[in-house]
């Protein structure tokens, strides 16, 4: 089978495992002020090497990964309807509402308050409920 050119580096198995553990730690710690050096320690790497290897393995920096996870979590919390924007901001580990809102907007495209209003209008404010992120084409082809 022909070789496919890969844009991301392959690290050895043990390093990959360590990077995955460090990434899991970052993913679990989005609520608290988890420091990147704790994740680097989990990977048994210096902060510099951790940053470089994480980026070359996963395609994004540890900081970007952490931010992305926090914003995904924020979207789910805003959509579930129980919390205010301020509460969500604190829950995902931001102490400043201003930086949370501007980061949210730069990633999601709209400010958090706007997003919450939009979601509630589309899905209705009722609980329990889930956002069904299922492409309609698959659902209509294989669902009922």
């Amino acid at each position, binding site marked *: 089978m022909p070789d496919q050119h890969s844009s991301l580096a392959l690290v*050895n198995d043990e390093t990959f495992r360590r990077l995955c553990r460090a990434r899991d730690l970052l993913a679990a710690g989005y609520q608290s002020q988890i420091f990147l050096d704790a994740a680097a320690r989990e990977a048994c790497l210096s902060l510099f090497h951790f940053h470089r290897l994480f980026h070359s*393995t996963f395609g994004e920096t540890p900081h970007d990964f952490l931010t992305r996870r926090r914003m995904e979590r924020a979207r789910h919390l805003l959509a579930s309807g129980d919390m205010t924007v301020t509460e969500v901001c604190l829950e995902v580990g931001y102490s400043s509402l201003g930086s949370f809102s501007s980061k949210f907007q730069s990633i999601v495209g709209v400010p958090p308050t706007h997003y919450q209003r939009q979601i509630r209008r589309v899905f209705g404010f009722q609980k329990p409920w889930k956002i069904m992120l299922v492409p309609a084409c*698959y659902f209509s082809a294989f669902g009922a």
Partner: protein
Amino acid sequence: MIQRMSHSAIFVLDQDVAKDFYVNKLGFEVSMDQSMPNGFRWLTVSPKGQSDLQIILMKVAPSPFEGSNVQKIQPQDVETIGGLMKKGAFGAGVFQTADCRKTYEEMKAKGVEFLSPPKDQFYGIEAVFRDPFGNWFSMTQPKNM
């Protein structure tokens, strides 16, 4: 303009068996596992190092809709497709590994069935394995060329 592929589908006959295989034996992560009230289950997984590609583990199922020009999948088609899968008609893709021989041993220990052990090729070291339904994959440790 199409910029990238975000989802790719692997057709399976049982999503619980598929989830156990791809997550517990291949080490993939679940991205989404949502069941709709009508029973349709949206199950996607990703390799740990590639969370921006979602692999849909799609159940082969009859399609109940009427009233269209396109022929729909009938229950007997599901059997036919299952039979073809078992015969190895579907090679769903190539996976990359940093260490083919080591990963081969680990996967074998977990009960993964290989059609071919690691072999030196001009492009790297390649083994071939199959999932519980017959979908087969190349697992290649690429050579720097």
